[in-house]
């Protein structure tokens, strides 16, 4: 058990690296900037300036003179200081150690390494008693069990590969050390969620993940918005992400509170035993509210709006956070609280499954028409997360969290690969064109320039589409089959159709970027002439391609962990033989290949410009295209809602504050002033006026006294 009980090292090592980077090596980096400025060569300085995306802003100064400000979007330094390099090495080394340890734990707990069986309820790893009241005690408790190990492996592996990749992607960036600090903080937050034993710890991790996401999306502080490409500035995107997930957290908190007040505990194990006594309707409501938190964090409908703008962050961030880990936190949380969902009424699981299914179809339909490379991947992520929730929703107690988590496991690898590959493409295009280029209509035929990226991207595309024998095939088709087997026929139909759409839009993206009509392999592999943009792109350095290759291997191999069902829920099993014999599996394969085929037929055979012309010339297609391109106008709807709803309310409140509250205070002052201003006229300075007052008072008093004395007995 010592093997498991030392796993707190995995949890706290990224925190350690965060602290060391922030207070140590980054300080060193900042202090040594001056010497770099002094010793850098002229070419290095020129290169740095060129890559920094500097814009000049001419404004009128306070005295009317013209001033020029430099807006540096992506500040680069001529050469990285040792402090920055060591920050990166520290992060990578620590993450590598954590990754190796977690793989060892995985191998030990599955039995590959004999002699280390996992006890039934997991192994408590760390516990800190925050404070105790008479009725409840609040502890920060961490525990490792099979579910945690499966998630831990994903988090540490993807984090390690992303950190390794960032050495190349974020080369010579001015915020290099800061980036690694934030990545370490994020990994710590994600592991906090993974190891959590009670709702308090999960919530802490939840919010920390939101914070890290905010910091990482808004990493390029001064970057501007590009309204003509429908892109926000990273600062706005990070705020949108934070606030939208926060809205989901309201439901989450209310759900946690309902559970706490009904059962008196936050602990998952205790809750699982105590919720049997709870009122079923209340429990169902509480679990649906808890699911709201997952809706926010995992970008399901209607809180999905933050994920596409979150692509404004650097691509390694998109790979880590918005593909593999943070958005999977919602799925993990539902998997963690699976016994609670099972004990609630069937409506809880129905809500989970239907939200997932609807979101999958919704996002896939939008992804078909997007023109921005990363945006296709963003909507793809939303869609695949929907799949995971479908998996969790239809599984029931027989299969447990297995199906959903299996898809999470495989998805992490191929989605991270897709994003890192996209990052490689964007990095190359940035070098070639000297400005940021993300539109697919300026790409094409890149396979000729970047073969490794193209091959690994193709592997990931086939995997996500569910092409037989790749990882996505096993996780997705088993999920879709499970929907049918458990009686959810409508969900089965929806997910099946979405699988076809997935194949379509992924291959479309691939062909638009890497292939084109007239290329090799019938258009799948591009030629240099097919490139629609400017400049000469070339393949990325080794630090970026090695993770791509590793992830490509994982995108195939991860699907072969058939024991995952039994690993997560004792008694469940993934019957491979039945899987291959089932007709539904092959129906799914046919639909996916049909989607791939349609994309191939359209995009590899016809030129992009002609396709665009065709769509524009037909009214129905044009309208459909416009609706899908504008994401069903959800963004516009939310903008209007906030502008007229939220801001309107705030105007009402401001009016209340100004006129009533301030009016009251000012009114009191004015009454007093009124008294002063008008009562002073009684002080005329003339004695006779005073005598009138005096004797008038005497007369009145005398009358009063006489009346009282004489007539009141």
């Amino acid at each position, binding site marked *: 058990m010592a093997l498991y009980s030392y796993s707190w090292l995995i949890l706290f090592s990224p925190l350690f690296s965060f602290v060391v980077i922030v207070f140590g090596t980054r300080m060193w980096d900042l202090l040594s900037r001056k010497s770099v400025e002094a010793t850098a060569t002229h070419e290095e300085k020129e290169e740095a300036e060129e890559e920094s995306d500097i814009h000049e802003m001419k404004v009128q100064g306070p005295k009317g003179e013209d001033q020029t400000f430099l807006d540096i979007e992506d500040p680069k330094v001529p050469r990285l200081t040792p402090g920055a390099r060591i920050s990166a090495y520290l992060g990578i080394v620590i993450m590598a150690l954590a990754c190796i340890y977690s793989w060892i734990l995985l191998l030990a707990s599955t039995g590959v390494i004999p002699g280390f069986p996992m006890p039934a309820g997991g192994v408590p790893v760390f516990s800190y008693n925050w404070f105790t009241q008479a009725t409840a005690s609040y502890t920060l408790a961490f525990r490792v069990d099979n579910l945690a190990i499966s998630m831990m492996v994903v988090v540490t592996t993807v984090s390690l590969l992303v950190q390794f990749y960032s050495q190349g992607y974020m080369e010579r960036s001015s915020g290099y050390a800061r980036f690694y600090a934030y990545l370490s903080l994020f990994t710590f937050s994600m592991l906090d969620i993974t190891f959590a034993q009670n709702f308090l710890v999960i919530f802490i991790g939840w919010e920390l993940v939101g914070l890290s996401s905010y910091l990482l999306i808004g990493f390029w502080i001064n970057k501007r918005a590009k309204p003509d490409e429908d892109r926000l500035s990273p600062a706005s995107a990070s705020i949108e992400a934070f606030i939208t997930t926060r809205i989901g957290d309201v439901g989450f908190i209310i759900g946690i509170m309902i559970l706490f007040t009904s059962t008196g505990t936050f602990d998952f194990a205790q809750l699982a035993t105590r919720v049997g006594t709870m009122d079923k309707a209340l429990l169902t409501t509480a679990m649906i509210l808890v699911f709201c938190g997952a809706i926010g964090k995992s970008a399901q409908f209607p809180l999905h709006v933050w994920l596409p703008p979150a692509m404004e962050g650097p691509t390694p961030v998109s790979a880590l956070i918005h593909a593999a880990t943070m958005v999977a936190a919602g799925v993990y949380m539902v998997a963690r609280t699976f016994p609670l969902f099972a004990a609630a009424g069937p409506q809880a699981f129905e809500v989970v499954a239907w939200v997932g299914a609807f979101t999958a179809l919704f996002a896939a339909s939008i992804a078909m028409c997007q023109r921005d490379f990363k945006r296709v991947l963003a909507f793809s992520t939303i869609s695949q997360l929907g799949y995971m929730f479908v998996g969790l929703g239809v599984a029931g107690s027989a299969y447990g969290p297995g199906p959903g988590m299996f898809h999470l496991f495989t998805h992490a690898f191929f989605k991270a690969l897709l994003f890192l590959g996209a990052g490689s493409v964007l990095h190359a295009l940035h070098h070639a064109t000297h400005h940021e280029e993300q539109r697919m209509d300026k790409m094409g035929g890149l396979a000729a320039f970047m073969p490794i990226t193209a091959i690994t991207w193709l592997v990931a595309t086939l995997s996500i589409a569910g092409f037989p024998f790749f990882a996505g095939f096993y996780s997705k088709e088993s999920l879709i089959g499970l929907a049918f087997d458990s009686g959810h026929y409508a969900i089965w139909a929806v997910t099946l159709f979405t699988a076809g759409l997935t194949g379509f839009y992924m291959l479309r993206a691939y062909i638009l970027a890497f292939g084109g009509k007239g290329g090799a392999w019938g258009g799948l592999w591009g030629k240099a002439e097919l490139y629609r943009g400017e400049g000469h792109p070339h393949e990325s350095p080794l630090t970026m391609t090695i993770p791509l290759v590793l992830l490509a291997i994982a995108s195939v191999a991860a699907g072969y962990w058939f024991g995952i069902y039994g690993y997560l829920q004792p008694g469940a099993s993934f019957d491979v033989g039945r899987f291959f014999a089932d007709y539904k599996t092959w129906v799914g394969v046919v639909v996916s290949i049909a989607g791939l085929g349609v994309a191939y037929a359209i995009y590899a055979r016809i030129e992009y410009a002609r396709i665009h012309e065709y769509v524009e010339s037909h009214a129905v297609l044009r309208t459909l295209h416009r609706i899908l391109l504008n994401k069903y106008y959800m963004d516009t709807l939310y903008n209007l809602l906030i502008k007229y709803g939220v801001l309107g309310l705030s105007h009402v409140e401001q009016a209340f504050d100004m006129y009533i509250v301030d009016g009251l205070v000012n009114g009191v002052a004015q009454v007093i002033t009124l008294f002063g201003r008008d009562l002073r006229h009684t002080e005329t300075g003339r004695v*006779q*006026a005073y005598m*009138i007052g005096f*004797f008038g008072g*005497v*007369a009145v008093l*005398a009358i009063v006294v*006489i009346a009282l004395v*004489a007539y009141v007995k």
Partner: protein
Amino acid sequence: MDLATLLFWIVAVILVGSALLVVGLNNIVHSALALVVVFAMAAGIYLLANAEFIAIVQILIYAGAVTILILFALMLTRTVNIQTNSNPINKYWWLGVIISALVGATILFAVTVSPHFVTPASSALGYSAHNSTCPLPPNNVVYIGNLLYSPTCYSYVLPFEIASVVLLVAIIGAIVIGREEE
């Protein structure tokens, strides 16, 4: 009606009439002269009340000194239009009428109609001696003299001394205030 009452009514009517003239006339010098009549008639009332000393003091001080004082002040503060407009009234005269009527009515009510007022039977004209060393004063002047100055009998010497201090202060004050500026 006996003689005392008749005389009282005559004196009272002249008194009230001249008081009304004091406040009613437009020429302030005429008002001052009416004031003299008021003082004189007041002295008559005192005589009717067996207060001969007070009557004489009234004539001496009020009708003599105070009147001269007022007339000198009138001379020194001469205004134009002394015939017609030297004694005007201000614009709140109606308020003055109401207030004085109210005050008057209250006092009259308290004095005449109120059931709590105790009316003495008649004028008492007998007093007893204080003790053997203070003989019965033969007349009002001696009585008041004893009451003011007597060192042996009961006396109001202390208020008398204080009144003299008051007079001293008043003299000095009047001189200082009334001085010409250098």
